[in-house]
């Protein structure tokens, strides 16, 4: 019992269903997550195009009435945050943690399988909610009550919101199962020589993000349950007596709507770091391979992660600066929030410094990594405008916020994920994706994405409000709206179309990509010491043993982090 898992903890599957559907294998589960994320990205992307069309031609009501618009915005945000980026990260975490740590599989493979299959009904509930009476949830992805609690207030707050809440409950259950597995595997299942300080930095990213997620999700669960009871159980945790169409609703109710916001953002803020940290750290992981230099500042970066993680739990109030909170508490939240820029800047500087006097190989994963550095800069410094409480009074609920979070949660994460996918694709499928198509995809993704969301900051400077069906209802923002909406919409379409290059590349390369050996990128970490794709149990023979730090590059030379002792002679590199 007190042995690491030198044996695969479950027998190799023999049936198709056991192998590819209800698989226990972390690699298959990882790919299942990634495919689900890609599928949902199409849905989320289409919704964003519908949003853009409406904003481009509001007077024509091309795509329907306001209730539809609000439902699209709500579901676009929800799907992108929870069912695209989160799932894609879960995919990479599943795929990479055991491979990079030298484990046969996750600590508890069955729980891992359950975690994925809990996501499936969750996705189905979210998608089904478009078709229920009243339509999908329409109170914004933040689901603030009373709007989300009272169907009389907005049609989407009928059955659609119930589906949304149940879908979220399943999502959280799934995340908890997956997260418990990630942490236990990282703590308990590392191979010989793999001390915590020698873990590839991406694993640190998954580790901190999972800790944050496990700490932050429970209060959201609490909030969601209480909201369900307010809606269906007659309680009034978050709702107060109100008048809609001269009718008094909920007589005598004396709940506290702000309580929901506190519980939501206690999750919501750490959640954004749950999304961004693994992505940025996967980018950090990729950069040394293509600069052929050791990573700059491994330890300072990890410490910065800890600081970011801790601070992120105590700054949630910056989403509520104008709710009438006590001004001293507001000032506290502001002071604490902007401190986060300090550890974040360590990450930024380390990303930059890793390029110092390097021998850069501009392969596709590296292109995405470079664009990530730029996007972190633009998005992060936008965060400073919002974290500073006085300027947030003006920027709150404007497109400045929309621009800020799309640069972070949308651009940084998606560009990192694309880079990671191009990078680890050979390990997943034994073939490379086309570099040529990859480069086309890069230019038509990175350029519009960064530009679109920078332009949205300008709209925000002009005071243009988010979640509006027709910004033309106001005169004050005419300039910001009219001048910028066309470039934004046009680029959003280009961006979306460019994804078909990616889909084509992804699926075609499964069959036609160039076949690769164990270590196509001349990389150091353990996953490159096993065949591509890795078989059941990850290493055909004994597990590799770690002898070095993870990023020992020296130009075209490199020292693998570890090796499989029995078959050491022909392993890649020059060790």
């Amino acid at each position: 019992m007190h042995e690491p898992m030198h044996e695969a903890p479950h027998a190799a599957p023999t049936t198709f269903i056991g192998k590819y559907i209800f698989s226990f294998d972390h690699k298959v589960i990882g790919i299942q997550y990634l495919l689900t994320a890609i599928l949902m990205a199409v849905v989320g992307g289409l919704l964003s195009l519908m949003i853009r069309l409406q904003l481009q031609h509001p007077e024509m009501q091309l795509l329907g009435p306001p209730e539809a618009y609000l439902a699209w915005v709500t579901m676009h945000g929800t799907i992108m945050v929870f069912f695209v980026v989160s799932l894609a990260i879960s995919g990479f975490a599943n795929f990479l943690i055991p491979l990079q740590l030298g484990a046969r599989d996750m600590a508890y493979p069955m729980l891992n399988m359950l975690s994925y299959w809990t996501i499936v009904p969750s996705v189905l509930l979210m998608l089904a909610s478009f078709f229920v009476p009243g339509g999908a949830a329409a109170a914004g992805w933040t689901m603030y009550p009373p709007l989300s609690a009272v169907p009389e207030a907005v049609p989407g707050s009928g059955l659609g919101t119930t589906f949304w809440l149940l879908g979220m409950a399943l999502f959280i259950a799934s995340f908890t199962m997956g997260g418990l597995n990630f942490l236990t595997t990282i703590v308990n299942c590392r191979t010989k020589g793999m001390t915590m300080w020698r873990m590839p930095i991406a694993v640190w990213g998954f580790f901190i993000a999972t800790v944050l997620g496990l700490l932050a999700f429970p209060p959201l669960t609490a909030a969601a349950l209480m909201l369900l009871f307010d809606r269906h159980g007659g309680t009034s945790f978050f709702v107060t007596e109100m008048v809609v169409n001269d009718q008094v609703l909920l007589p005598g109710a004396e709940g506290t709507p702000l309580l929901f916001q506190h519980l939501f953002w206690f999750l919501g803020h750490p959640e954004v770091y749950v999304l961004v940290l693994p992505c940025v750290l996967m980018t950090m992981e990729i950069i040394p391979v293509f600069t052929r230099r050791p990573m700059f500042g491994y330890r300072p970066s990890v410490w910065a992660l800890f600081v970011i993680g801790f601070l992120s739990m105590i700054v949630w109030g910056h989403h509520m600066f104008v709710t009438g909170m006590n001004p001293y508490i507001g000032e506290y939240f502001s002071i604490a929030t902007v401190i986060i820029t300090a550890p974040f800047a360590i990450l930024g500087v380390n990303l930059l410094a890793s390029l110092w006097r390097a021998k850069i190989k501009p392969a596709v994963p590296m292109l995405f990594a470079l664009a990530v550095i730029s996007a972190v800069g633009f998005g992060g410094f936008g965060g400073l405008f919002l974290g500073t409480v006085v300027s947030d009074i003006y920027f709150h609920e404007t497109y400045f916020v929309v621009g800020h979070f799309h640069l972070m949660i949308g651009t940084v994460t998606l560009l990192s994920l694309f880079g990671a996918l191009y990078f680890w694709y050979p390990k997943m499928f034994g073939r490379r994706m086309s570099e040529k198509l990859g480069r086309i995809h890069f230019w038509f993704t990175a350029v519009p994405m960064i530009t679109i969301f920078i332009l949205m900051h300008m709209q925000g400077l002009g005071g243009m409000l988010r979640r509006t069906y027709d910004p033309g209802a106001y005169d004050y923002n005419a300039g910001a709206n009219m001048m910028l909406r066309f470039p934004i919409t046009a680029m959003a379409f280009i961006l979306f179309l460019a994804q078909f290059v990616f889909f084509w590349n992804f699926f075609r390369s499964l069959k036609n990509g160039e076949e690769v050996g164990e270590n196509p990128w001349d990389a150091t970490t353990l996953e490159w010491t096993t065949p591509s794709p890795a078989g059941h149990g990850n290493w055909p023979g004994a597990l590799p043993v770690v002898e070095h730090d993870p990023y020992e590059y020296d130009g075209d030379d490199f020292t693998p982090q570890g090796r499989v002792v029995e078959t050491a002679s022909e392993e890649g590199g020059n060790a």
Partner: protein
Amino acid sequence: MEPRSRPRIILGLVAFFGLITLFTVGLFMLPWRSEVASDEGGGIDAVITYLLVATGALVVLGHYVLIRFLWNGNGEKGYTRPTPKVEWMWGIIPVVIMMILSEAGVLVVGAPTWKKLYVDRAENPVQIEVVGKQFQWYVRYPGKDGVYGDYDFEEIDGADNPLGLLDDSDAAVDDIVTSKLRLPLGRPVQIRMRTHDVIHSFFVPDFRVKQDLIPGFPTEIRFTPTKLGEYELACSELCGLAHYRMKAPVLVMEPEAFDKWLAAQRGYFE
């Protein structure tokens, strides 16, 4: 990775990072905001300007470094591995810079305005109440007695008594209810806010101020208009289908004209 394509792609990246930086800095300098029309708004603008300059410098610096490293990224300059000491030094430098820059924005440039808006209490501000409901704004002045009359949700009747004021409340008799927010130039105003249904938010872009209306929890904001003119009051919190056009006109008047207008109004039950 054909070696021939390398310089071109590096060139492309350098061009992209350079152009996007210039483009952003240029765009930020355009006058997106209208001229500020309140005293506190001036303080808010000062913070925004401070941040634009400070972060603008950092973004330019960051991209300059990025471009430079890319441009030189051919492995020809001698590389020596940074020692842990160097790594930690470059951990501390950004921390110091960011702490100073960011906290200066909050504490030095920002705090006085924050205090003015939410802590300081002007003497004898003009009392105004703003009430939000789906999807309309009401403005109430307390009348000669300076006291807001009582109300009851049961009494609300969209046509006759939109605020549900009680006709047996003495204070309510002289209350003045309109749907246009009139403010006197140069006098501090104190606006109390409440809502009949969901959360709304009071936003006048020209004043730069914003304040949520929370059910069951009246909120308040104080500011001083400094520019005559007509402005728009926008609802800035998603509140339902017609959220996007929940607006009301705002008029800043000469103080004398304001007083005259106020005196000429009939009370709610007069």
